[in-house]
């Protein structure tokens, strides 16, 4: 097995854990709100967050594994790709957004939208080889999607009859 294959498998495993974890975190969060529990209580949700974090760590290490390979094998130009830098930016926004939510600087609905959109945006950017767009174009679409997902999630919460707990 070459290093490239190993890194690819690791990156896919990280994606499964991370994107899957983010998806189920949203589902369990809605379920816990609907059942009247506090926002992040519940074993399922806590376990899901843990799996999500493990996925993120695997993704970061394997992601940089890709970059190291590119550097060492003479493909340094890949490190300046707009698609790569958009992905790095999205991941940075995700990580800082989680901190902001943990510090109660942003409301759950916004943290939720940023997290959900960021995970899927990173997945799509990683998979979309040959994407012909500039960094600014990709980021503009990303921010629009964050807003769109926030609206969609709010609609889903409303249709499920879930009232947001007031921010304490």
């Amino acid at each position: 097995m070459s290093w490239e294959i190993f890194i690819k498998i690791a990156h896919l495993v990280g994606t499964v854990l991370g994107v899957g974890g983010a998806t189920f975190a949203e589902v369990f969060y809605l379920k816990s709100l609907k059942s009247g529990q506090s926002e992040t209580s519940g074993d399922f949700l806590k376990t899901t967050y843990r799996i999500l974090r493990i996925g993120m760590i695997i993704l970061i290490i394997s992601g940089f594994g890709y970059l190291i390979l590119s550097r060492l094998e003479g493909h340094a130009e890949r490190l300046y790709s707009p698609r790569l830098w958009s992905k790095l930016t999205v991941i940075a926004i995700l990580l800082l957004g989680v901190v902001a939510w943990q510090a109660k600087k942003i409301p759950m609905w916004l943290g939720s939208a940023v997290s959900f959109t960021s995970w899927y945006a990173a997945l799509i950017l990683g998979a979309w080889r040959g994407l012909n767009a500039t960094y600014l174009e990709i980021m503009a679409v990303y921010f629009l999607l964050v807003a769109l997902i926030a609206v969609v999630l709010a609609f889903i919460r409303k249709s499920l009859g879930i009232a947001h707990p007031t921010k304490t």
Partner: protein
Amino acid sequence: MTSFLQILLIAHIIFGLLGVIAFYAVWMGLLKHKPSPRFLKFSSLWGFIALVLSWFTGGYYYVAYYGTTVKPVIKAGGYPWAHALFMEAKEHVFLLLPFLAAVVALVIWFWSERMETETATPLGSGFQIKRSLVLLSGLITVLGIIITLAGVIISGAVR
């Protein structure tokens, strides 16, 4: 590049990532309503060790190889600012991290239980220490992320 230098470069990057991840975990851990002293001690200590290892492995690569072989390529290429700004800034800002990390680890090791008991009062001294540690671990994390991204820029200019 010899295999030894390749291993050093890889080790520098991986240890650096582990250090930043560890201090991100410290940052998040401190923001919890009830921080876990055991988790904070573990993360801060290993984060400090990882940053020191990244320092030494990167330093050897930098002194033994980068200056004589990589820097001229970057400066002669299409992105000379990758060295002039990003490498110069990175190699010096990185020097701050082990000392910031050492202080965060020391304070956590000797004060984490006190923070737990004194967090109840928002203006209590334990809370003030915790707040300062949040700022410091956040600073280490953010600087670590910036330094990592600078490394990507530098490596991308080697052509």
